[in-house]
């Protein structure tokens, strides 16, 4: 790649530190734009190495119930792609180091207009994109234009992605590779012990890019085990569930909501920091 993003710099730093990182996912605008801003502004200080910001969508086909309702809460409270970009701009005013990856589905981007979106995302300080419903077969839609705009397009690899197909998936990959560790939607049960180690080893044979493993990782111990072998563990459903836990009886943000979410981020971050590379791997 001819450009370097905050993602590249952050993973280089993590490798230098000899530890795996924590990629923390929350849905932008969940449960409302103001509370969501407080969460996002606090993620890096709580120990998130990469911020994954969910772009709310009405029909999140690859997500389990927790992230589905997070999207619904956000949209109901006025969340949108435009406001997601505004949040990144506001974050960048105080934090120019933590990588921000937008994660979601293609339709809101398509309707926004790919060129306009890439221009605005780049200007806001977005480093990478994970768009679940854009496999390599559709790379002309956003992956190649994103690369031209200086934004990493992150590809997903799944247990169903065979070796022959991996090379196709990785052809235009940059930033990092996101390994979907279970065949299922977000929030599913964790992958069986040992399968992630084997999967990471397989991916390493195909790419030098950092590997982030997600889906099914909910506890600090799970995050630690993953961070010991991969370059980062991604946690989403557990954080979004904390948002839901912090709602009051009317579905509005309760007083302890932000602290509850950031507290879990701290615990997860402690977990990945405990796991020095190579030590927790059995």
């Amino acid at each position: 790649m001819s450009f370097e993003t905050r993602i590249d710099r952050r993973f280089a730093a993590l490798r230098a530190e000899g530890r795996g990182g924590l990629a923390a996912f929350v849905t932008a605008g969940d449960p409302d734009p103001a509370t969501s801003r407080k969460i996002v502004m606090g993620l890096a200080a709580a120990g998130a190495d990469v911020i994954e910001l969910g772009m709310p969508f009405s029909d999140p086909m690859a997500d389990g119930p927790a992230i589905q309702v997070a999207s619904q809460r956000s949209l109901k409270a006025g969340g949108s792609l435009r406001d997601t970009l505004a949040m990144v701009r506001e974050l960048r005013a105080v934090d120019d180091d933590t990588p921000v990856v937008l994660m979601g589905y293609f339709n809101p981007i398509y309707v926004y207009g790919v060129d306009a979106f890439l221009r605005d995302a780049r200007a806001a300080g977005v480093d990478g994109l994970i768009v679940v419903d854009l496999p390599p077969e559709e790379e002309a839609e956003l992956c190649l234009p994103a690369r031209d705009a200086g934004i990493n397009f992150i590809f997903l690899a799944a247990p169903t992605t065979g070796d022959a197909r991996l090379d196709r998936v990785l052809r235009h990959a940059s930033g990092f590779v996101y390994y979907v560790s279970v065949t299922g939607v977000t929030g599913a049960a964790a992958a069986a012990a040992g399968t992630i180690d084997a999967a990471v080893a397989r991916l390493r044979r195909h790419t030098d890019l950092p590997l982030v493993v997600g889906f099914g990782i909910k506890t600090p111990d799970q995050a630690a085990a993953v961070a010991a072998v991969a370059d980062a563990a991604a946690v989403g459903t557990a954080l979004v569930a904390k948002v839901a836990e912090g709602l009051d009886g009317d579905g509005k943000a309760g007083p302890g909501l932000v602290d509850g979410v950031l507290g879990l981020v701290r615990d997860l971050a402690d977990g990945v920091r405990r796991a020095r590379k190579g030590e927790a791997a059995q």
Partner: protein
Amino acid sequence: MDSLNTYRGGPDEQGRFGKYGGRFVAETLMPLILEVEQAYADCKADPAFRAELDGYLANYVGRPSPLYYAQRLSAHLGGAKIFFKREDLNHTGAHKVNSCMGQILLARRMGKKRIIAETGAGQHGVATATVCALFDLQCVVYMGAKDIERQAPNVYRMKMLGAEVRPVAAGSASLKDALNEALRDWVANVEDTYYLIGTVAGPHPFPMMVRDFQCVIGDEVREQIMAQEGRLPDSVLACIGGGSNAMGILHPFLDDKDVRLIAVEAAGEGLDTGKHAASLTAGSAGVLHGNRTYLLQDADGQIQEAHSISAGLDYPGIGPEHAWLRDVGRVEYVSATDAEAVAAFHVCTRMEGIIPALESAHAIAHAMKVAPGLPRDHLMVVNMSGRGDKDLNTIAALDETAPKGDVA
């Protein structure tokens, strides 16, 4: 559009009809989608597959379905000579079984043991449950909670046939949400499960494959109208939700430039009320459920709820080939409201002794609008895509609230 040699050549290798279609699915599903594409190509090239399918269509489904001259309705309207293509007489009562039969044979060849499907009106769910019973395969049907309520007889039929009906309460609790949930199931069960999609939508190769299996409708109409009238029809009409019955009857006529092709969307309570399901008439291009097509959506790309009295048309998208046919102008897309469909339902029932599905009643409603102004030698074929037994609860509920009157 004059530069096209054929309108029947799509899709291309990327599964595109013009800019529509494609394969917008998660990576977890992608290898399986490619496997389905290969398996379908193998089946298409295998005469034994076609022979097996034709055998079931003839002896199990009851094909060919009749092409019936609706004499009283034609006389009543005083214009075009109207024919019904009687897909309502198929086993299970609608056109859906045509594609189910083809896809179940494909799933068996792929060695899949578990079948999932989404359903709106329940016709596709019933047809899927039926072919699963026939071949002793596990069957799970996702259905919006709202649709379960308004299509109770079909829910009961599916259960009797051995299917598990899983209610979907998320979102608008109707067809699009059932599709989301079926996709989530598929992603979690890719190894043993085949997703038997009910319409000409979803990722490539489904729009092509379902179209191919449904084209038996239009292919038969060509032969039947030639036998009965000695020429091709002047116009062909079908209702359209996702678009499978419309594609099945219209596609074989796409290259007959003198045949007018019309598909009728659900205008619900009216196009200007926002409560409708007319994605081609009132939507815009977007990406949902594996393909790019016309969608009902807001300025932020959020999908809006569709509305139609007919659960089978209550979908905010449409098959991608229809989106392309709209843009190139080969098929006319019009709409009929709930009220027009209900009126047509009653007229058809009283005049022809045929109780149409509320979906099909949309096509009849448009026929009733245009037929009086057409000459008596105008041959008009209307796809009677399904029978209306499943809609009796909906109609009965209206009767309790609506003023009585002579419907004809």
